[in-house]
């Protein structure tokens, strides 16, 4: 108890959760084995990345020619034959090849699945079932198995059998979020090509899909711990991302309108947006009444506070445009650092209400910022095959069983020898035979 009085919270928690010590600690999922049959789909790869970072043994199964996802990379750029998008999600996984369309491949898959905890796949609905290795078949061999299928339109419902492919941009478009993201035309009769619904720059549909898949899998794992029962999980990345919408359906039900897209404004809070400043962009917010008053004090515009005193006055698009212009007059006279100093000085010394400032960081600035290196958000990994790479770590810092990255990726089939040996006791002879038959 005396320890608590002597050590500040920040020092205490850093001593207990600093990722620099992660590799000395146990792992949450090191008793779990996963088969990942993701095909041309990063949602599946991300879900199993999460599991592997928590210590699960993940066996990544690719067709003998490799997963097409290995070619998802900007302008076709590859590093040692692997695209950068895939390279980022190969972490900690064993990479084997197996042709699931061949009966012999299916037999081998069944033998593997008999002794694993989790299967993740992203084929079109019914493909694995058609091959005789879907949940219906595996459940008989392994009743505790947790089987997660990922597909834009899911495994049932009127559109499940439509036959369309699952690609991130389409998940984003179907989610409902693209429709509310993007600039409103300045002149509605003459919109610019950029004034359209806009996707997130990253594969956000796939990442949300993978995130929900991991959530559901771990919840199912807890249920299995209690009951011994496995189950089937159906995840649509479009729905997974769509679940993150602020509000939409209830607004439509009540007002028979859709939420418009309003660029960098927010239909529920103002001010809460990006402003141009002398040397770049700054985020400023102050939307509750007391915080709005604080902002008006900082920019020395008490008249604005009087003109728009309540949240309700500030949530009118026309008023927003007026207030925005007035606030921007002030930001344009200052550099970002000056704005940050002025705001933080107020917060610290006057502190009646809080204004939150922020910087719009270009990704290269983000990657150079000391903060993220100190916290090991970024880490240099000396991968045995891919050499030195910079990866982003998972956001959880944990005191007992933290996640970690051990290697970044593996080439196609690189772990055939090890995995087939450790699982089945096969050696070079057996592998050669399977290779000749085109099974691996």
């Amino acid at each position, binding site marked *: 108890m005396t320890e608590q009085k002597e050590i500040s919270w920040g020092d205490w928690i850093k001593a207990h959760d600093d990722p620099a010590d992660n590799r000395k600690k146990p792992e949450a999922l090191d008793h779990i084995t996963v088969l990942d049959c993701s095909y041309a789909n990063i949602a599946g790869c991300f879900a199993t990345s999460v599991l592997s970072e928590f210590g699960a043994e993940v066996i990544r199964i690719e067709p003998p020619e490799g997963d097409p996802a290995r070619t998802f990379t900007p302008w076709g750029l590859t590093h040692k034959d692997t695209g950068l998008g895939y390279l980022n999600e190969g972490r900690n996984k064993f990479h084997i090849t197996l042709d699931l369309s061949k009966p012999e491949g299916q037999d081998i898959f069944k033998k593997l699945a008999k002794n694993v905890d989790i299967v993740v796949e992203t084929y079109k609905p019914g493909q694995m079932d058609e091959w005789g290795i879907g949940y219906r078949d595996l459940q008989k061999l392994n009743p505790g198995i947790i089987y997660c299928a990922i597909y834009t339109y899911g495994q049932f419902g009127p559109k499940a059998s439509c036959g369309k492919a699952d690609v991130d941009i389409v998940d984003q478009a*179907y989610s409902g979020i693209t429709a509310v993201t993007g600039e409103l035309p300045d002149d509605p009769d003459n919109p610019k090509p950029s004034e359209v619904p806009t996707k997130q720059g990253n594969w956000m549909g796939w990442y949300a899909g993978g995130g929900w898949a991991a959530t559901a899998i771990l919840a199912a794992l807890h249920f299995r711990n209690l009951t011994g029962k496995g189950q089937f999980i159906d995840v649509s990345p479009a729905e997974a991302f769509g*679940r993150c919408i602020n509000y939409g359906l209830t607004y439509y039900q009540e007002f028979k309108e859709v939420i418009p897209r309003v660029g960098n404004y927010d239909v529920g809070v103002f001010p809460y947006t990006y402003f141009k400043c002398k040397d770049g962009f700054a985020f400023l917010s102050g939307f509750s009444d007391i915080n709005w008053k604080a902002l008006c004090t900082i920019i020395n515009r008490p008249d604005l506070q009087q003109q728009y005193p309540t949240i309700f006055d500030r949530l009118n698009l026309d008023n927003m445009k007026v207030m925005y212009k007035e606030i921007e007059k002030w930001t344009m006279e200052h550099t970002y650092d000056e704005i940050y100093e002025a705001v933080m000085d107020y917060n610290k010394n006057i502190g009646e209400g809080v204004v939150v400032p922020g910087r719009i960081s270009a990704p290269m600035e983000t990657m150079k910022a000391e903060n993220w290196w100190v916290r090991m958000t970024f880490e240099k990994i000396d991968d045995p095959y891919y050499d030195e790479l910079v990866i982003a770590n998972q956001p959880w810092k944990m005191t007992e069983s933290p996640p970690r990255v051990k290697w970044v990726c593996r080439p196609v089939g690189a772990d055939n020898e090890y995995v087939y040996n450790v699982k089945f006791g096969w050696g070079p002879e057996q592998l050669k035979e399977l290779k000749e038959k085109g099974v691996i």
Partner: protein
Amino acid sequence: MAKPDYFKWAEELLDPAKTFEKPEALADIKIVELCTLILGPSLPSYLSEFGATVFKVELPGMGDTMRSLTPFAKFFKGAALGWQKEARNKYHITIDVHAEEGKELFKELVKRSDVVVENLRAGTMDRWGIGYRQLKEINPRIIYIALNGFGQWGPYLERPSYDAIAQSESGMAWITGFPDKLPLKSGIWLADYYGGLMGAVGVLAALTYRDKTGKGQYIEFSQAENLIRAMDWTWLYQHLTGKQRERYGNRDVSICPADIFHCKDELVAIAAATDEQFKGLCQAMGRPELAEDPRFSTHLERLKEENAVELLKIVASWASEKTYEEIDKLACEYGFAANKVSNSKDHFYDEHLRKRNFTYVVNDPIYGEVTIEGIAPKLSETPGRIRWLGKPVGLDNEYVFKRFLGLKTSKIKELQEKKVIGKWADQIGRKPPEDWDGKRGVILFNK
């Protein structure tokens, strides 16, 4: 390709109509939430769908700031839309944890719970004497997660944060939007909702560890770091080339073709991520020879800037002469990816999403039938569900303090008089709807 009975089998297995006949995966888990806005509150909200019991602790009177957050200040039967959605399934109680008796009450709840979720500034809970260091002493099995902008230590510690700041500091806003426009904030509170989701993954991983070892733990979660992790190839690209990732509008520069196009009547996302899908698209366009063209015959070739620009032009010109219905039909037949840019109205009338409980009708005891974004993953044995939405401030005080803490009616009254606990302030978003009869939604109502 699927066996004829596959979809029938899957529908039978996953049928949302049978949800309430089945158990819940997290029925044994209790969560205490001391959070405001979205980043923190969304986490227990996600877990509540799997059956976790969530005690949402607010300050008496005004409660969570989120209770004011609604588009254009338009309320739904007196409740803020931003609030109502994420307050789903929770028990709504009030405790003033600044007061000594409030702290005691809070600790009693934590003693009986499995998870604590908070999103206050780093160190606040510790200063109040109800942080992880204190709570692990009374409940060593507790899993405690603190979510905020920049974590509990490090150079950015002093910086306050919001969703939009996590989007901008991570670089996410920079890579979103069009080159000729400003960096673009998502139309949703992305860092909050996706932050809460990945926070939930951390809690469940810790739960698995506890199932195995009996040990609880502390989880530190930064929403900015979470977005950095989700920015796919950005960091490898910058590390390997020394070049910065910029924003490229709706075009995905790592999959080709993948863009959003104008067709005759809609905006439609069209993509082909594999050679097989691309062949299908070429056939659908009536241009099967394109799949053999050396500029387009492999994905790595298609991705090269000059080839990609050429190919996207071809697709754009084709799409502009079709209706969405025509494109959709061809996508189904030829197996490439296509969907129109859908909005909430589309979701409201989408029979597919209704069937799948994404477009979910909650039968709320207070607010009646409410359509809302519902269940994302469908689990065959333990399907997710929504019982009710956000409630007025302190509505469940009596129920929770009696059932879980065993407080006597007189004690509850006393705490109320001391303002340690309490009901709603007479303000919109805090109080029950106008037509409320004083009974609807109250558990253990006294006649």
